[in-house]
């Protein structure tokens, strides 16, 4: 499969990565090479072969319905750029708070 500029543009859009217009051609070439390389799989007969999603030969383990986590907004917000933390005094532990993003209009 060879990808053109506009295909790369829309993949980059889906992946939310800004790619400068002048890099699109080069990237299209590179990605096309990679796709050509992986396309050798087409020659393998996989009729009736179930896809392998995990190598772990076990069923999904489950946990009990108990509250064992959460309650630490300070930790949750500590690394967030532009977080708004609500607390009574600078020393007090957080009483919640928010992550912030540019305003979303729906």
């Amino acid at each position, binding site marked *: 499969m060879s990808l053109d500029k506009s295909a*790369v543009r829309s993949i980059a859009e889906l992946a939310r990565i800004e790619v400068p217009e002048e890099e699109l051609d080069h990237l299209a070439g590179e990605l096309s090479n990679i796709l050509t390389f992986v396309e050798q*799989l087409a020659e393998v007969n996989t009729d009736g072969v179930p896809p392998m999603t995990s190598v772990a030969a076990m069923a999904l383990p489950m946990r009990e319905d108990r509250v064992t986590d959460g309650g630490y907004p300070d930790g949750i917000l500590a690394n967030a*750029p532009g977080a708004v933390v609500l607390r009574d005094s600078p020393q007090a532990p957080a009483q919640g708070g928010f992550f912030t993003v540019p305003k979303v209009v729906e």
Partner: protein
Amino acid sequence: MTELANLTIAEACDRLAKGEFTAVELTRAHVARMESLRGLNAFITETPDRALDEAKASDARRAKGEAGSLEGIPLGIKDLFCTEGVPTTAASHILDGFRPPYESTVTANLKKAGAIGLGKLNLDEFAMGSANITSYYGPVENPWKRRSDPATKLVPGGSSGGSAAAVAARMVMGATGTDTGGSIRQPASFCGIVGIKPTYGRCSRWGIIAFASSLDQAGPMARTVKDCALMLGAMAGHDPKDSTSAPMPVQDFAKALSGDIRGLKVGIPKEYRPAGLAEEVAAIWDKGVEWLKAAGAQPVEISLPYTKYALPTYYIVAPAECSSNLARYDGVRFGLRVEGKTLDEMYKKTRAAGFGTEVRRRILIGTYVLSAGYYDAYYAKAQKVRRLIADDFNRAFETVDVILTPTAPTPAFAIGEKSDDPVTMWLNDVFTIPTSLAGLPGLSLPAGLSSDGLPLGLQLIGRPFDEETVFRVAGVMEDAAGFTARPEGI
């Protein structure tokens, strides 16, 4: 003090126990080496003060008779493991300033065993690479040099390049690595040390920054087989916080090193000798077979016919999973944010500025192969071929107990070499990727030097959860190889 840094973990454990020196002394010796060898760029974050505090606490525990299995042993941690309060970068700009408020299960296990953390080791960005040249914090230099050309800086392999270099250069006694397609084994081979990727599910993935979830496994890197066995014993174990963690007992791996492999059948896959395999790599592989024969094991030629499809399979599965795993790096909750007028603009600018070329490339490939209309042709197809590759191994293990192959097709190459074409770079992992796809344990040990004085590794592959056999065979080969070479000046 340098003498202390030359000890193996096993020797250091013995002598610490006998009171010949303290954990503080041992840690100081390694801190000194870490500082004097900064030029290799093996560390992203050094934590000498924390290490010395931990060493003091370790000595106190020992005095109270509460020594763990790795009590007082200074280790390095690949900077893909989240460490509480210590910056964790995945060698990516996008994790700028990130300090995890939590500790990965594997590093917590090592701490519980008494190990001391010297700092966070460099790697390829998000563990994507085979040369440790994609790190935002710059490439790592291999302490080994070509005899013919000692001025040229060589790569340590990747992605656990900082780990391999630090262990080889005696900055740490051992290090954690992670292996998705060969990221423990290939750098171990390039740096003349031992590294094992255990069976998928052996070590918890909780708290390790994900690259490709169905492939990622943590493992130890150290200078001897026994040291790796000791480390793995501390790192491994069932973790209810990881749904893919195996509820399997952890054996005493060091005890498995009995030295007796008589009657064991060793598979020699013919597909691992492609045309154009470097002469000296083929030669060292043959030598390895001879060592095993001499020890009473029986080499058996086997066929793993789907081997040639492992690389293309991997380069669909791994990027697909990575494109999804790396969606969380969006500038909202941690790490880098590049402001934008709209939410989408912020995402796009942040991710463009935060991810390096290789990571971006893989995200785009992964996004493409999962997208509508292409899923079946690429992702579903790769998952089917993956099963065929795994079945190859299942069939082989009906007749053999362990498989011996080269670890990498070449010795370490120069920084800057091979970097213009991604597919050529990926060929580094041609011998390690099939094992990863099948989830099997694979160990690399140094078997000898190339004609230019660079280490060459051999890989042993075992049945699922049979690391004991892998270690046992590796121990015999280690004795036979008698690999005592060290990088010049180390």
